[in-house]
């Protein structure tokens, strides 16, 4: 009985977000005929991959009660480094992708050390890494944009991971399948492994977790490593989706991801959150991003709305706590 209640409660938040997503789709479809077309559907998905990946990763630091602000500039920088190696140094595409992910993981370790070991405030530490990664990509590989191999070329096959174009020319957004697989895997990690359990525990009550004999520093660090790893993967997704990576971009991407996670029910004060919630929350943001122009609003309205939604989502938390 009680279980049903707990289950029902989690379900409630996710169902609500799902409801919002559906409502948005319906609203946009009614207001704009062009919105209800297959290409738009594909474009929403295309825009969602890198945000989804970032969001899945950043959910973990958020659950510990911290945050990772370095993922946005990070992913651009990883994609730049990887792409630079592939395009200018003749490295095989597989290695380029691997480098992209590994550099992400490395920055995750760095963040983890700053926050978990050196005890710096997470937002400040990762704000610094945000700047560092912003400089890192261009500094390492010239300040020019990098274009990963196009889908037509042989090396560009990796782009098909996300968007498969059949011989007849139909586009299949296959990336969503991978996203769903990752959502399942990370849900498993969060809900059924020690890493996830202790990350939730740290967010709930760090001191009590330490007293239970858990190596708090290690698991706290793990949260940032996961975030870094996923930022690396987001870098690959970004490179696969967009033609060219421009240095200096990426600032503000993290907001979309963090906004998605918090809309999806991750608590800004830690301890609460689900991967499915995050996944659904991301679509609220992505739909705003893609959908608003269809109803005659500039894409930048999305930024304003994301900001407001972020505060509203946190306020719901705050009000709940007061009760």
């Amino acid at each position, binding site marked *: 009985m009680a279980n049903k209640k707990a289950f029902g409660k989690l379900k409630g938040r996710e169902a609500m977000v799902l409801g919002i997503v559906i409502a948005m789709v319906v609203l946009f479809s009614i207001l704009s005929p062009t919105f209800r077309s297959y290409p738009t559907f594909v474009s929403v998905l295309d825009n969602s991959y890198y945000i989804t990946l970032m969001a899945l990763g950043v959910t973990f630091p958020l659950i510990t009660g911290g*945050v990772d*602000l370095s993922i946005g500039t990070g992913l651009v920088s990883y994609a730049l480094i990887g792409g630079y190696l592939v395009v200018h140094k003749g490295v095989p595409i597989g290695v380029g992708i691997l480098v992209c992910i590994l550099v992400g993981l490395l920055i995750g370790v760095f963040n983890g050390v*700053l926050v978990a070991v*050196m*005890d*710096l*405030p997470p*937002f*400040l*530490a990762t*704000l*610094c*890494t*945000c*700047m*560092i990664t*912003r*400089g*890192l*990509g*261009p*500094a390492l590989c010239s*300040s020019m944009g990098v274009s990963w191999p196009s889908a037509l070329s042989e090396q560009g096959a990796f782009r098909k991971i996300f968007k498969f174009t059949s011989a007849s020319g139909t586009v299949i957004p296959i990336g969503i399948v991978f996203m769903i697989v990752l959502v399942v895997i990370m849900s498993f990690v969060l809900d059924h492994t020690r890493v996830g359990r202790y990350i939730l525990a740290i967010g709930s009550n760090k001191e009590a977790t330490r007293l239970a004999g858990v190596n708090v520093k290690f698991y706290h660090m793990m949260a940032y490593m996961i975030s870094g790893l996923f930022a690396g993967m987001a870098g690959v997704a970004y490179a696969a989706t967009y033609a060219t990576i421009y*240095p200096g971009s990426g*600032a*503000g991407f993290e*907001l979309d991801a*963090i*906004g998605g996670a*918090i809309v999806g029910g991750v608590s*800004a*004060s830690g301890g609460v959150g689900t991967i499915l919630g995050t996944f659904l929350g991301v679509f609220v943001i992505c739909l705003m991003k893609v959908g608003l122009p269809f109803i005659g609003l*500039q894409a*930048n*309205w*999305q*930024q*304003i*709305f*994301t*900001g*407001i939604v*972020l*505060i509203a989502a*946190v*306020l719901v938390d*705050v009000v709940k706590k007061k009760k």
Partner: protein
Amino acid sequence: MKVEKIKQNAFVKKVGFNRIVLIFVLLLMYLAFGVLTGGSFFGFSRISNTLNYVYFLGFLSLGVTFVIATGGIDFSIGPVMFCCSLVSGYCLTTYGVPMAISLVMSILIGVLFGFFNGYLVAYWKVPPFIVSMASMNIAKGIAAVFTKTQSVSWPQSTTADGWYRNFVSMNGIPIGLFIFLAVSVVCAVVLNKTKWGRYILCLGSNEEAVRLSGVNVKRWKMLAYIICGTLVGIASIFFVAAYTTVQPGYGDQYNNEAIAGCVMGGTSMAGGLASISGTVIGVIIISLLQQGILALGFTKEYQYIITGLIVIAAVYSDVSARRRKN
């Protein structure tokens, strides 16, 4: 020990040991850049470039000093500054709003953002970093929507409306420096000599004790953010007066540099401890560093990296100093 002895010296005590160290760092850096660039760093153009940077960054840093003094944080200041100059600049260039009113508008937009942030943090208890993220986004969004994602160029000094540039320099006299120093003095006075500053510092140190003394802590906390917003508005004027053109979507990097100046100057991230003179020196160091890196032929990317590392170092020394004390 020798260092202890120096610290006991009356003069050193009066000026503050940390400040003397900072000034030394500043001078050493200046000399080092000068030597490394073969003397060209001492040239007039570098000095004026550095000063241009000091102005707007200085105002940002002064502003965020008040917020950090309460134990909070605001990293929306960079984009908010851009929002101020973009929106008012667009009004100026497109709608023909008079220059004076545009300038006032710049400041007012800053004040509004400060009020918004402060209200959410103080009255609704939203964590400052969430508020910062949100208002960073909102500022960028408003600026982009308002200007239709176009950059805005403020009038050149030769035009009739160009008088506002005199704020930075008039006939080669660095008026901006005088204004900046004057505002710094005002900030120092506010922080150290008025009730506002007293309460802001005290609540940053121990909010509950101040509340139990019968002080309306929420109001004073919000005030810190409003002061910050006002200074951000002023910063936006100095930014356009020095650099003319503003592009929507940018401004993030200045958050870090402003916080860097503030933390280097000895303001504690935990709140309750702030030094305006420290911030001023810190900002000059950061600005010199940015110019020096460019002068040495490195790109701005290295600026980002180095500033990031400096903030980490400064915050870490603050954190570990506090840990030692406990």
